[in-house]
């Protein structure tokens, strides 16, 4: 049993073996030599990459790699395991932050300015129309990818012990994604956004007993007006992104911490 597995690995993974040998032999590729200089040694806390143990130490002591575990279960590499939807969602979040910050330079959240600002962005600002498109389509795609990520995690049974709490954080991240998308929807201040938010916020008014108060806190008044625009803007560019990034950090941290646990399932994965 274990013999066949080893045989298969050697047959299918000659590249890995090659890398291992190469590093053990010399470790003198370009990056290796850069790491070996005085400057390199000051940057990398673990500059030697000779043995597999060194490579693990190098990973472990690298700030940029610290969100990843050093090793993962082999089956996680396969596309069908996750469809990489977590990566896709995170990359879309990055795309949204980058394009969103650019748009913030040209946008004032008041009914007198918002709509003309968007027109200016589309006509006069360098790459304005393109950046606005990137922001819009990334947002829609992120709603899809986060929802699909949740579905994939469900069917894989990956919400089970010890990952229950990370699933809960994921549910909150999905809600934050929807809220971010919804608050952003109002900002162009055109007929589409105004009435979509009017319809959407009417749902808040149906909460029993405190519906009107909830709606008033959300909109800053009984109807969508200038204070709604300001509120949605602050939520959209500050409050909700901060919450999302904070929870995403915990989400990824838990993913790393739990990445080796699948010992106690009574049926295998395959």
């Amino acid at each position, binding site marked *: 049993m274990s013999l066949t597995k080893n045989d298969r690995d050697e047959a299918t993974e000659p590249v*890995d073996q090659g890398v291992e040998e190469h590093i053990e032999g010399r470790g003198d590729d370009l990056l290796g030599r850069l790491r070996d200089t005085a400057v390199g040694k000051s940057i990398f806390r673990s500059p030697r990459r000779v043995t597999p143990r060194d490579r693990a130490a190098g990973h472990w002591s690298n700030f940029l790699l610290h969100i990843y575990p050093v*090793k993962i279960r082999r089956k996680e590499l396969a596309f069908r395991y996750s469809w990489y939807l977590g990566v896709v969602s995170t*990359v879309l979040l990055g795309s949204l932050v980058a394009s969103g910050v650019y748009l913030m330079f040209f946008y004032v959240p008041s009914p007198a300015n918002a709509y003309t600002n968007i027109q200016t962005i589309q006509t006069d600002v360098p790459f304005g129309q393109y950046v606005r498109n990137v922001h819009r389509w990334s947002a829609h795609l992120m709603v899809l990818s986060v929802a699909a990520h949740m579905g994939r995690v469900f069917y894989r049974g990956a919400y089970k012990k010890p990952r229950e709490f990370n699933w*809960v954080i994921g549910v909150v991240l999905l809600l934050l994604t929807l809220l971010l998308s919804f608050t952003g929807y109002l900002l162009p201040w055109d007929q*589409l956004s105004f009435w979509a938010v009017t319809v959407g916020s009417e*749902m808040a008014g149906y909460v029993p007993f405190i519906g009107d108060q909830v709606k008033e806190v959300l909109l800053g008044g009984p109807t969508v007006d200038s204070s709604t625009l300001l509120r949605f803007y602050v939520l959209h560019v500050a409050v909700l992104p901060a919450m999302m990034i904070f929870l995403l950090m915990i989400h990824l941290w838990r993913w790393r911490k739990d990445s080796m646990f699948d010992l106690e399932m009574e049926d295998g*994965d395959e």
Partner: protein
Amino acid sequence: MSDVEQGTPVELGRAPQNVEGKRVLGVVPGKPAAGERKVITRDDTVMVWPHLLVRHAVAAMATLVVVMVISVFFDAPLRDIANPQVTPNPEKAPWYFAALQELLSRFHPLVAGVLVPGAIVIGLIALPFIDRSRFIKPRHRKVAVTTFTTFMVIWIILTFVGFMFRGPNWGWVWPWQEWHGEL
């Protein structure tokens, strides 16, 4: 034998025997034997660099290429400036709330606007604390998979109906005849 507590090793009372090359010193009731327990070995794991990171880099670049291509060819919509006096017909929520809006057109607002979405969120949060079995294959947890799939399919259908099949006064339209979906 039956009064032995779970987890207490049972003395075999004779010379150690060999099983699959290992000496059996005792048996712990309720725990799988050493040979059957799944233990992560070196062969089951790979280094994240380069194996996983290369794949993540490809997934990231593919995502960005898709976003770039869509953004080059399709412009984000911008209608006339907001006018509280002129209500468009139909009035549509963003597409991810289309299922809720469709429900609202059929049921009492308290049900469609509060109880259903509240129950969905609470149900999702409670899921890992309800389905606690130690099985992950879909065929070993039929109740959870059936429930989740049913809700998901209903939700997707309602989203399509609200997004594409509703026109003026929330009446039924065929999307290939009249298009009222807004992104």
